[in-house]
């Protein structure tokens, strides 16, 4: 039966109820509680037979329906002082909820179409406009990798086999190297990392240079820029801020 096929497509008890009401072809306000309850329970049985999960929400509405049905069957109890007062229709609350749900179910169809329609209008992403020599956010990792590459390339790594290992006295300090780099940069527009390390005499020198660069960055004397991934890193003198310092 095609009804079985539909059973799996109900979003919830209200969805099913609405469907049953429509099938009965009656006005929601005129529904026969007895009929609707029977249909609903039958549907739930059908769902169980199809091994579909009958969630608690369905059971709650089933219980509600049975409750309303029983109330319509019982004789009405009139309380004292009750003349021609309108007796509460036990179906009212349920009908109200059903109508509320129906409102949103119908409008959501319309909205879905609107979304589909809106999809046909394509827009552009905003332009990304960046100032020229803006330092790329170099992570420490990238900087280190550049340093590692420099280290690999440098001659100093071609270690000569030594019979005796000499512990040499420190020749250059970090601050001395910082001075050197800074003065060097002043005369030029930029300095590349690899150029800095060209005359490296020892591994120690390379390390000191790297530390000097890091320190210069930290005290905001220079900026480093990498044009492309894995390309050389260039050092620039940091321009003084014109409006307020940093």
């Amino acid at each position, binding site marked *: 039966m095609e009804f079985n096929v539909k059973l799996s497509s109900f979003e919830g008890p209200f969805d099913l109820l609405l469907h049953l009401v429509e099938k009965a072809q009656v006005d929601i306000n005129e529904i026969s509680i007895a009929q609707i309850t029977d249909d609903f329970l039958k549907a739930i049985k059908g769902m169980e037979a199809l091994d579909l999960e009958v969630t608690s929400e369905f059971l709650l509405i089933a219980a509600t329906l049975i409750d309303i049905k029983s109330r319509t069957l019982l004789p009405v109890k009139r309380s004292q002082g009750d003349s021609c007062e309108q007796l509460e229709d036990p179906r009212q609350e349920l009908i109200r909820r059903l109508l509320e749900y129906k409102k*949103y179910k119908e409008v959501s169809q319309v*909205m*879905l179409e609107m*979304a589909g*329609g809106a999809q*046909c209008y394509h827009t552009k992403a905003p332009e990304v406009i960046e100032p020229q020599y803006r330092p790329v956010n170099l992570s420490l990792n990238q900087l280190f990798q550049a340093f590692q590459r420099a280290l690999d390339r440098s001659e100093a790594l071609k270690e000569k086999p030594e019979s005796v290992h000499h512990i040499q006295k420190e020749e250059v300090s970090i601050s001395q190297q910082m001075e050197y780099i800074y003065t060097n940069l002043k005369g030029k527009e930029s300095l590349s990392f690899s150029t800095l390390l060209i005359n490296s005499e020892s591994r120690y020198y390379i390390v000191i240079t790297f530390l000097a660069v890091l320190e210069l960055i930290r005290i905001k004397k220079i900026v480093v820029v990498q044009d492309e991934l894995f390309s050389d890193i260039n050092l620039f003198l940091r321009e003084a801020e014109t409006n307020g310092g940093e």
Partner: protein
Amino acid sequence: MEENNALKSCIEALLFAAGEPLTLPQIAEVLDTTPLHVSKVLEEMKEEKEKSGGLLIKEVAGGIQLCTKPQFHRFIQKLFGIERYNNLTAATVETLAIIAYKQPITRAEVEDIRGVKVEKALASLLNRGLIAEVGRKDGTGRPILYGTTEEFLKQFGLKELEDLPKLIEGA
């Protein structure tokens, strides 16, 4: 008028570069004029664009945006080689509809209307940026209140919330 044409071209350039909707005051400030003036010029531009070209000017999410005409949608899809599916399920849209019309609203209130749990739908809608938490309701538990976002307006082609379709009341 010469000046008007220059203005129109400039507005077109601004809309292109911005991509996202621009408000009348935003455009007016850049062009050193009033929003009223901009809106008048835009009216002419809208008509002109509708008659020719592949683009049109749309009012969306409280602003103006340049976008492609719907008839070219399938070509654009072909160009990008993908089918852009909405894949919003009926359940999700129902939940969204309730929030859109009744915002701000709590989860429990939505569930009351829908008759089912909406946790999954809410998560999906939050994920897509169509709804957001807009506050908390006074009372026990101080439950979270939800409302729709600007992204919602954009994805459904709405200028503002007032443009939502009218609900059909009663049976």
